[in-house]
Structures are given as structure tokens and as C-alpha cells.
């Protein structure tokens, strides 16, 4: 091996060339080259046309729908996930383990199957729809349908990031607070929540990122209504089908950039969470 002197000490272990070589080969062939093809196509478009495509009324509406629905879904999952993590960690009750296992279903269930099922449930003659319809609520083919699909597919993330932190919390602080006469709510707000906050935010960020990327479940429940329920990845798909490759590539690139930014944020938050846990 002809490694540089300062690093050599680290490399007593074998397999650096093999493992990094395999990793880079895989990443290059499977991820980087295809992404590069997209970037090249995007560069081909030219900045003016690119800007015109991504700021066209329909594209802006699609981004807005995607973001709004993802925000609604994430808000729901933030509360629901926190509740689930709390209940699963802090209370002992029959069926707790089953409830815990159920949290992973949205992750394992193919999203298209979830979409098909959710659509049927919420449509006017479905299990839920029949009760919602008389109230004038019809989530299918509205932005609420999009949010429902997003919420379903990103259920596990907040639960699964908050749960381990909550399990590791030192009960001493809470007991101390209780001895001082603090109410349950005050203890949660002042003692518990600050400690789980980094993990909670990390979970919320992943949940949001996952919602932005969801496709399979949404196409069934959303209907392709431009300006109302058309999400950005669906618009990219439609542009592709319309044979408008520049349009598809430009929108895809914006989504890709969004994903990378969110990834960086989530990695930072997770590093923060890890440090926090280390201190606790």
C-alpha cells in the first residue's frame, strides 16, 4: 500500500482498497452516474429556460402542494409519533408489543398498496369515506388525501428516532422535579422535552424528507389535478410522459437539490442528537 504517512497508522486493518473500491464502484454505477445524467440534462437546458420551467405557475403550484401536504403530514406525525414513543416507552399495558410492531408496517408495506387501500378507505363509499361524506369531507382527490398518504408512509420515523432516546433518559431529573412539586405537564415540558428535542427534530426532518419523496401512495389518492393535488414528482412524471424531457429533468433536479439539503440538515441534527445523548 502506498498510503500517505499520517494516515498509515490508521490503516493497520486490511481491506481498505477492497471495501472502498467496492463502495465507490457501487455508488458510481448505481447512484452517481445516473444522477450525473440528470445533472447534465439539466445543464443542457440553460439557466433561463430552467428558471422558466421551475417558476412556471403549474410547477410552483406543484412545489407548493408538495410542501404544504408534507408539512401537514409531518405536523401530524410529529404529534402522533411523539405520543406513540411516549406511550410505548413509559406505559406498560396489554398489547404494547403489538402496538410497537405495528409502527413499522408503513415502512414495510409497498407504498402503491398503501395508496390503493387508503384511496378505497377514504372514497365516498369506503369505510371512512361513508362517515366523512355526510360531513362534507371528501379527502380523496384533495390536498388532504395527499397529506394522508404522506402521513401514512412516514409514520415510523418520529417514533423510531425518539423512542431510543426516551428509553435512555435518566429518570433522576424527573424524580427531582417531582419532589420539587412540578406538575406532570411541567416536567414533560421543562425536563423531558428538552432532552428529546434533538432526536425529535431529526425524526421530524426525516419524516418531512420522506414525505417530499413519496410517490406510489400519493398517485392513487391524489388524482392528477393540476394546481390542486399535483405533487412535484408527479409533475416530473407527467412531463416525462408528455415527452417534455427538459421539464421533467428541471423539476427532478430541484427535488434532488431539496433532498440533498434536507439530508445535510438531518445529518447535522442527528450528530447533535448523538452528542446530546452522549452528555445525558
Amino acid at each position: 500500500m502506498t498510503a500517505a504517512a499520517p494516515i498509515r497508522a490508521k490503516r493497520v486493518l486490511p481491506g481498505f482498497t477492497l471495501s472502498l473500491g467496492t463502495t465507490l464502484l457501487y455508488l458510481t454505477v448505481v447512484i452517481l452516474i445516473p444522477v450525473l445524467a440528470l445533472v447534465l440534462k439539466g445543464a443542457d437546458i440553460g439557466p433561463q429556460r430552467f428558471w422558466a420551467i421551475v417558476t412556471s405557475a403549474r410547477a410552483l403550484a406543484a412545489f407548493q402542494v408538495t410542501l404544504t401536504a408534507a408539512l401537514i403530514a409531518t405536523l401530524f406525525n410529529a404529534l402522533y409519533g411523539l405520543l406513540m414513543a411516549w406511550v410505548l416507552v413509559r406505559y406498560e399495558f396489554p398489547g404494547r408489543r403489538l402496538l410497537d410492531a405495528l409502527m413499522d408496517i408503513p415502512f414495510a408495506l409497498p407504498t402503491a398498496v398503501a395508496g390503493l387501500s387508503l384511496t378505497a378507505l377514504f372514497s365516498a363509499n369506503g369505510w371512512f369515506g361513508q362517515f366523512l361524506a355526510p360531513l362534507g369531507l371528501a379527502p380523496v382527490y384533495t390536498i388532504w388525501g395527499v397529506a394522508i398518504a404522506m402521513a401514512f408512509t412516514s409514520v415510523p420515523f418520529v417514533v423510531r428516532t425518539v423512542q431510543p432516546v426516551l428509553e435512555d433518559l435518566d429518570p433522576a431529573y424527573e424524580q427531582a422535579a417531582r419532589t420539587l412539586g412540578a406538575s406532570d405537564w411541567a416536567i414533560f415540558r421543562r425536563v423531558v422535552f428538552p432532552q428529546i428535542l434533538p432526536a425529535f427534530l431529526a425524526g421530524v426532518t426525516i419524516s418531512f424528507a420522506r414525505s417530499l419523496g413519496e410517490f406510489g401512495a400519493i398517485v392513487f389518492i391524489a388524482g392528477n389535478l393540476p394546481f390542486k393535488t399535483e405533487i412535484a414528482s408527479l409533475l416530473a412524471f407527467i412531463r416525462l410522459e408528455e415527452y417534455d424531457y427538459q421539464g421533467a429533468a428541471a423539476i427532478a433536479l430541484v427535488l434532488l437539490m431539496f433532498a440533498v439539503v434536507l439530508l445535510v440538515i438531518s445529518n447535522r441534527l442527528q450528530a447533535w442528537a448523538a452528542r446530546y445523548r452522549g452528555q445525558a
Partner: protein
Amino acid sequence: MKRSIFRVAALVAGLTAAAPALAQDSLLNVSYDVARELFEDLNPKFIAQWKADKGRDLTIDQSHGGSSRQARAILEGLAADVVTFNQETDIDALVEGGLVDQNWREAFPNGASPYYSLPAFLVRKGNPKGIQDWGDLAKEGVQPVFPNPKTSGNARYTYLAAYAWGLNEFGGDHAKTQEFVKNLLSNVPVFDTGGRAATQTFAEREIGDVLVTFEAETGGIAAEYADKGFERVTPSISLFSAFPVAVVAEYAKKKGSEEVATAYLNWLYSPEAQKALAEHYYRVTDKDVAADYADKLPEVKLVTVDEIFGGWAKVRAEHLADGGILDQVFVNR
């Protein structure tokens, strides 16, 4: 390690071999969205015919989707032997891509269109909104359902048929016609990418008051959902919708399937195939068969793209091009 790699390789090889064995002849027919049941019915008939004629086994694979989407997939390498589309423009796109012979219209009778249909209506039981003609679709409170005219040939015929009705109604006034088409389009609650998805929206999800699609689909769906009591309505004027077919020469040559591909498309003009087509509510060119099924397919005033719009080339340039009339009226806010 090596042994286990071999074992995995052997496993994969075994699985690959277990795949259905390749028959002697095979065809990939890439088709439009609502032709699913049609070719499921037609293909076994031709396979039997081919076996009887040539003594060779044949398998026919089908792919269905919005016809422009299908054309794009073929341009990207989906190795279709034949295309059975619902619009000439999509075959012309393949010509431009160098995949289909430029003179494809002369390769088979009737401009390479073995059957035709027209945009027609399917309304809910008892026709509660009293929908009779194109004008009713643009009225306030009426929700027509049809797919995205950008991805579906079916919906482009709908758009053009409505436009043709408008020109007739408003004495050739394009501005008034466009206003009408704009109102019609903005009444549509959902734009699916393919014709069948639109049918689903109307029939299964019970959205909209009227499904606008090929007469063949309205007939098939009314029969399929007999319990829902959908009713077929034929508008006063509609557009002659050709269903052009072509051999995708570039791919067929490579695969050596030209002979069977040509025979397959020619067979679509045979009385046997025409009868099956008429069973599926398509209008056919065989006079005898057409006469037999006349009661199923009422007389209707049909106009053609050539008469009203001066041909497909003009339609593409004026209506369908980026920023064309379709883009101007298809705003849907």
C-alpha cells in the same frame, strides 16, 4: 466464499431457466390504454390462426398505457414489434425517431387503420344532468371526466371533437370556440394520464357526471357495470377517430419478427377480427360485419381531422405544440 458464490450463481441461473421458455415466434404489441380487453380477446384468435397457417407457436405480449406515453417508451428502447395506437401523431413521432417507415399509412388498407371509433359520452343512471351534447359539458355544475390531453390520444380526440362542435355551433368563431373549450376543460375535476384511469375515476370512484371516452369504451364499460345503470349518449357531432397500426420496422428487423408482425396487422382486417372488434363496440370497415352490428352502433355525424383542422400536421403545430391553443385553454386553475 467461492463455493457460495457459485451456489448463488447456480441459483440465479436456475431461476432464469425456469422462466417461461421462449416460443418460436413472439410479438410485443404496444397499445393504447383502453384496449386491454380487446387484445386479450383478439390475440388467442390470431395465435390459433398462425399455428394453423404456419405450424409455429406464437406468443403475443401486451403493453398498455396512454398512447403518447407508449410512443415515448418505444423511442427510449421499448422493443415493440407492432404498435396499435389511437392516434396518427404518436406513430409519426416514431417515424421521426427513425423506428417506423415513413410510408406506414400505405402499408395497410384504410390508411393503416383497421377500425375506428369516436368520442362519446357515458352518463350516470337516468342521466340526472340531462347531458345530450358537447355544449352541456361546459355548463356550470357539470363535471366531465376524461384523461390528460397531453398524455392520452383518447383525450386529444375529445378535445378536438369538442372544438369541432364549437366551430360548428359558433359559426366558425375561433375565439368563442376556445372560450367554450376552456370552460369545458375547467369543469374537469381530475385529469388521469390514461383513458382507463379516467374510467376508474368515473365508474369506481364515482366522480363526475359524464365520462368522455371512445364509444368502444363507453359500450364496454356500460356492459361491465350493468348494475350501475350507466347510459351511453352519442353527441350530435363527433370526430372520426382512426386507430392506426404499424410495424416498428427497426425493432422487428432486429428480432426477425417482420413476417409475423405484418401478418398480425393484416389479420386485423379479416372478418374474424372485425367481428371481434365490433363485439367490443368498435366501428369496423368490413361492410358485412358493420351491417350485422349496426343496431349496437347508432348512426352519428362524424367529421374528420382533415375536414375541420386541415390534417394532423396542422393540429400538431397549432393546437398541440408547446404554447399552442391547447396550452392556452388548458389552464385549469
